[in-house]
């Protein structure tokens, strides 16, 4: 049941990301709902399903982005695996800790993607816009994560356990 909830959340997130979210840009920076959904799964699901779910989140994003050759699929898997590993050493049940983790992950994700776009796709992005996307994108994702994770947590408690 819970897995299906996450799949439904992923499809809705994907549709929102490619349609309406363009109107909700903050300083011309768009929210990455795929990343937020994937990281939420990393916090709530067990390790095996979380990595698989994150892979599908990344794959879904890669399908819609031009020329990324699957970098999002690999990155999302990597972030979820790191969070899983981190959860063994740290207590990440606290919302503040989660928020910090999300911010750092989003920041790293944006940096890797930015470097990839600049180096591999050979796009010259002005430094101001580059930094704005990296920093504001991470902040925006962190703020929205608070809302999304609350919704997922509510659904999570409501859903039947299946793992």
């Amino acid at each position: 049941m819970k897995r299906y909830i996450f799949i439904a959340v992923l499809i809705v997130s994907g549709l929102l990301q490619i349609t309406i979210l363009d109107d909700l840009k903050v300083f011309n920076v768009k929210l990455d709902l795929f990343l937020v959904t994937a990281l939420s799964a990393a916090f709530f699901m067990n390790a095996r399903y979380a990595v698989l779910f994150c892979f599908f989140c990344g794959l879904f994003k890669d399908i819609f982005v031009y020329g990324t050759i699957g970098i999002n699929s690999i990155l999302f898997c990597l972030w979820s695996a790191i969070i899983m590993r981190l959860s063994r050493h740290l207590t990440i049940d606290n919302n503040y800790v989660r928020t910090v983790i999300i911010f750092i992950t989003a920041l790293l994700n944006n940096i890797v993607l930015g470097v990839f776009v600049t180096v591999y796709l050979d796009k010259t992005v002005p430094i101001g816009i580059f930094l704005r996307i990296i920093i504001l994108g991470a902040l925006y994702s962190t703020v929205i994560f608070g809302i999304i994770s609350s919704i997922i947590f509510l659904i999570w408690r409501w859903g039947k356990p299946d793992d």
Partner: protein
Amino acid sequence: MFRFRKRQLIPAIIFGLSFVILSILIPILRTPFFLLLKQPALIFISAGREIKGFIFYHRNYVQNELLKKEVGFLKDRLLKQEEISIENKRLKQLLSFKQSSNFRVVPVRVIGRSPDNWSSTVIIDKGRYHGIKEGMPAITYVGLAGRVIEADEYVSRVLLINDPGLGVSAIIQRTRQEGLVIGTLGNYLIMKYLPEDADVKVQDVVITSGLNATYPKGLLIGHVVSVGQEFSGLSCYAVIRPAVNLATIEELLVIVQ
């Protein structure tokens, strides 16, 4: 000396293989995914438009009143333009100029946008079946919007002019000064490679030069907002506001001929 051990090699091979597999898998999955999500995406876009209309009711009302006034003014100007156009046609015939043929366009609807911040693309609801091919320019009634970079059977992808991956050969309409217009991922474009002493002023109109066979000559790109010197001091650049509002485009016209 750095040496690869077997243990280090395995993750590297897995990592490389994943990239290879994914780069093959993703283009195959693209078409069925787009087709599957075409209708839901259109529903989301319609819902979003309705919600926006509701939220921005007052702004739309004021804008509507202003536009009504502008329409009256433009009608008058259009009448005068038509007169000039007829006169121009007549004079061209007199001078035996080669008449430039009108474009054949395919109207398309935008069904999706790029989900990330690092590219500026839109997905359109028509593809090869409708005569759309890679490399064809996409315009709106206002001016140039982008270029088709991927054409599947029933859907295509258009790279918008504010993407840094798209360069358009352009000229300043007033002085015929040539340059290359490149996107910045932001709200503005940059016209590069202008000579140091280029005669470029704020509000100058920038159009396609026609030097590149991809874009027909004379398509409106935008207006100059500011002019600056390159860091090297050897050339200058102009910041351009695109004529087309790229954030809100819902329909496009793809020039197929």
